[in-house]
């Protein structure tokens, strides 16, 4: 529309130096965590139960649903992030999940319940032992990185870019003007 300032998509430098490593890093982290959980859903169900938010006697179906659904969601998100397809949607869902996990961890600390995070299956990532401030800080950091990806999108090296080049048209016009 006349007078409207076109939104500017990520440039090549941002795409290659920031967004691509971010996508691949988050995909590797959550993809690995997802595979561990998918291979042992029973342990992940116990990990969710240990949060003591859902009563297993009354909400067994919900616990079971989360135990199977969350790891598959993480795996699908990881694949989407690698491809750069639906990057904003995948990053948004990952951010929502991270926010929920972080709130759950905070509630454990407030309620003084000592349990392990099991956020990455039986593996530890940066933090170890019972849930504490380290886990909260780690999740907050991951949340910020995920929000950055949800805001900026997959960048130029992504399927999103190939499917919708119009988002980057303003950059190309600007580049050609500079060249001229």
């Amino acid at each position: 529309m006349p007078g409207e300032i076109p939104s500017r998509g990520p440039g090549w430098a941002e795409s290659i130096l920031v967004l691509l490593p971010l996508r691949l890093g988050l995909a590797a982290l959550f993809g690995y965590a997802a595979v561990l959980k998918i291979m042992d859903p029973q342990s992940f169900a116990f990990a969710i139960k240990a949060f003591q938010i859902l009563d297993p006697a009354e909400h067994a179906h919900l616990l079971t649903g989360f135990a199977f659904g969350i790891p598959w969601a993480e795996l699908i998100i990881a694949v989407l992030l690698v491809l750069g397809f639906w990057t904003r949607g995948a990053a948004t869902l990952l951010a929502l999940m991270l926010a929920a996990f972080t709130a759950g961890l905070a509630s454990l600390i407030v309620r003084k319940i000592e349990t392990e995070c099991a956020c990455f299956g039986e593996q530890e990532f940066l933090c170890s032992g019972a849930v504490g401030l380290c886990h909260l800080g780690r999740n907050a950091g991951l949340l910020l990185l995920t929000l950055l990806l949800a805001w900026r999108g997959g960048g130029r090296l992504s399927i999103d870019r190939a499917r919708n080049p119009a988002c980057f048209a303003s950059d190309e016009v600007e580049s050609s003007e500079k060249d001229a």
Partner: protein
Amino acid sequence: MGKQAIPVQVLAIIGLATACGAVHSLFEPIRVDRQSRGFTLPGDPGDQTDADPADPSAPEPSPEQASTEADTVEDAADPVDPQVADQAGDGKIPLEIAAQLHERAMMGEPIWFLDARLRDDFDEGHIAGALFMAHTHVSSGEGLDELMSFSPPEANDLIVIYCTGGDCQASEDTAILLEAAGYANIAIMAAGFDEWAAAGLPTEGP
């Protein structure tokens, strides 16, 4: 696809994950709660144990228990009233009842104490004669094989599981997996190991 499609993308991913999870659950069912919280104590009228002291195929006490076995089973502590043992009806027994059962286990009765805490905690100290049995140890098959080698489910021996007490869920988790493996006579010690040790009851480890 523009920004307005993000909610659609999110819902599509959730839907796909739900479908994948639903199919996965058909092939690998899990349990999140116990089927039954009842248990029978050795000597109860309702005790259906098949264990026979004269039967050579009967489960042998673990090495730890055998080393402390008393001369005769008749010297065992007084029988425990199941009503007293499980006052809350939640399959949990108080510390004093667990101590009585432990005394009987040390005398060779088919009662087994399992430690559901983490391996490091177990190595630092555990109830005398107890076996390491975190839920991961059961699900890996290693712990279950070990338990079955001297106390198969058919024996209906009493199994007492403990963890750190309080809000600890580890005992429940181990109990759920043992139930799935066929063990039906399971009691959970309401108190944790620290309370046990603080009460001056028998422990092992550094």
